[in-house]
């Protein structure tokens, strides 16, 4: 493991650990408003100060990371699974199913999905708890994010279809399910992994984008997305660098993933 990868792994470990044990590390509940101490700078009880409602920024960052860092991979898993199922079957079976899946993929890619999420979010029931709302947001991201990886996976299947090992398996009389799941799927593992790890930061940032519009995770739950919203007011950030902590957390997480998962130079894929 290179030095950069080691650093990236440690940083990711620290971030994940801190967010998982947020309840123990943070001294204040993330939703508690200390209205006499609004927008205060870092102090003994508040390592990152308080926000505009007097809530502990440190506690909100840790809990926000927990939500985003748990749910972004979950949404990525959902979208990659959907993409694998559709891409694999389309590439392998061909014919009308391939045409249907390719058409659906093109349609999904051409949709302004960001606005689609906003629309779907507006159609959902109103009286949902914040915890359900956050699940809905990431669920939508997962359900709508399959098209691009499905296309990549389909292409990979098409290129593997004429490979020698598949030809031999076919000649040996392997059934279609066996060909798909025993022979093809293991060979697609690197592609699937890559698609999964690409989707994680993408969803993390998508939730942040929705948060910027006020449509992501609802109050009082924190997420990296709604914490990043504060940065939209750049004149407020100028004199208060501790407000950049959520941005630093996102950059560390996304950068860490890239360092950790980038193919090693000289290594074949």
């Amino acid at each position, binding site marked *: 493991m290179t030095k950069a990868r080691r650093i990236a792994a440690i940083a990711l470990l620290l971030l994940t650990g801190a967010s998982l044990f947020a309840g123990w590390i943070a001294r204040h509940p993330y939703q508690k*408003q200390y209205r006499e101490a609004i927008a205060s700078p870092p102090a003994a009880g508040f390592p990152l100060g308080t926000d505009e409602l007097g809530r502990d920024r440190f506690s909100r960052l840790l809990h926000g990371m927990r939500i985003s860092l748990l749910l972004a991979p979950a949404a990525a898993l959902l979208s990659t699974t959907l993409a694998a199922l559709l891409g694999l079957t389309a590439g392998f079976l061909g014919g009308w199913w391939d045409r249907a899946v390719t058409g659906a993929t093109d349609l999904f890619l051409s949709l302004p999905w960001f606005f689609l999420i*906003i629309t779907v979010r*507006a159609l959902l029931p109103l009286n949902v*708890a914040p915890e359900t709302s956050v699940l809905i947001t990431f669920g939508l991201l997962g359900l709508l994010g399959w098209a691009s990886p499905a296309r990549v996976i389909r292409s990979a299947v098409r290129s593997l279809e004429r490979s020698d090992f598949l030809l031999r398996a076919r000649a040996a009389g392997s059934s279609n399910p066996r060909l798909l799941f025993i022979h093809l799927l293991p060979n697609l593992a690197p592609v699937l992994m890559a698609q999964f790890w690409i989707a994680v930061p993408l969803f993390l940032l998508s939730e942040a984008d929705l948060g910027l519009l*006020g449509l992501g995770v609802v109050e009082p739950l924190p997420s990296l997305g709604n914490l990043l919203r504060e940065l939209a007011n750049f*004149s407020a950030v100028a004199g208060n660098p501790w407000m950049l902590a959520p941005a630093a957390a996102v950059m560390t997480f996304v950068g860490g993933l890239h360092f950790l998962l980038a193919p090693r130079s000289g290594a074949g894929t």
Partner: protein
Amino acid sequence: MKRSLLTALAALSLAWGQGGELRFCLRAEPKTFHPHKVVDEASDTVRYLTGGVLLRVNRKTQKLEPELATGWRIAADGRSITFDLRKDLFFSDGTPFDSADVVHTMAVLLEPETASPLAEPFRFGSGRLNTRAGGRHSVTITLPHPIGGFERLFDQIAILSSRSAIKEKAVLGPFLISERKPGAYLQLMRNPHYWKKDSHGRRLPYLDSIRLDIQSNRDAELLRYQRGQVHLLTSVDADHFDRLAASPHSGLADLGPSLDSEFLWFNQAPQAPIPAHKRAWFTSRNFRRAVSEIIRRDDLARVVFRGHAQPAAGPCSPANKLWFNSKLKPHAFDKKSALHRLAADGFRLQNGMLLDRHGNQVEFSLVTNAGNRTRERMAAMLQQDLAEIGIKLNIVTLDFPSLIERISRTLHYEASLLGFVNVDVDPTPQMNVWLSSASQHAWNPSQKTPATAWEAELDRLMRQQAAEWDFKKRKALYDKVQEIVWEQAPILYLVHKNVLIGVNPAVRNVVPSVLRPQTFWNPEFLALDGARISQRR
């Protein structure tokens, strides 16, 4: 009073001379340049700067003053108003102004094709409005029935030329549109035929031109203001205000409470697709009052608006000098009283949760518009306040079109947090809110007959005040309206935001006002200190 103010302004004007270009920002592209079709703030700004009106509301005194009319008389029965018009005035293209233009203006205004929002108050009730010229310089407008305070509507009705070939582009105001680059800016130049002169006989306006930059980003607007590239800020966020006000010569000022209010209401409509037990909560006066009494309005004003807001008692702000009912005070935080009211309706606290008499947990959603940080913060504070009496509040932020669809058409919501921008001090334009049959009767719109006795009383009082033209009688009637709203709390008024403005020290003669347009309501008298400007360039 007015004469002394103008004399003082004119005397001061000698110190800096005429000319110069005033710059400020519009938040969006004006949607129309037809003065009768204005529905947005940007178009309204252009109308204000270019349009000539018969009467003008002095934004400082909130009283009407003559403009294109030298005087006006309301008939004893309150059904007609006669204007005496100024003589020898000309539109910007040189066509003369007389009573035919006023008749033409009213005809265009009331044409269904114009679809003017300004015409709505004149359409109240049955019958037709009649405009009749009594010679070249006198016009009488007769209404089918009296409309209280209708003379104030003429502050917004820009007079159109009946003879000009360029139609509504011929104006009587101090400026006219000279150049437009869509999405970038709008250039106004002084109207060479503008009629008004200062006390020294100098022709107004003092400024040569006004440049209106289209800038939707408030941060960018503030930055440009700090650099001296724009001279006026018409509304500043409380966050920005405190930061900028700390620097010397910032020119920022807090003018006190505005006419605007922030409020929440519960959906009481019987046709709304919400559970029956929730509708029963929302239609209970005790429940609404309990919620109102658990809200810390002082905290909302201090935390969300950084102290630049006042707790609200009702629809009328203390900024409205003419109509505010000073006997009413905001519902004070009183947890004991709130719990007492809830207990009277069978609610009980159990394990920190409020349950109704049937054992349903009291939980409801509050919709507000996404991306509005102020309202989201208010909602988060309400969430914590309501939790004190065991009410679970779920905040839902929706994009604006979805929100409007829910609160006005599908009625698929439980409670909503929104604000009201009030442009006029008179209560008559609020008929569309208070009448039970009105579509904007927020908590239970478009009722065939009033659902409650107090709504029937609101209908009666609002109709009576609208049909009355004696101010004292109207004030007594509207005071009663405010008292009913305070007592029944169909809308929980939370705060009145303060008017926060910025005026570059180089701009002279600004008379800040809480009424819109707060900084440039006397555009013909505004002037620039050339020395200061050149230093900044």
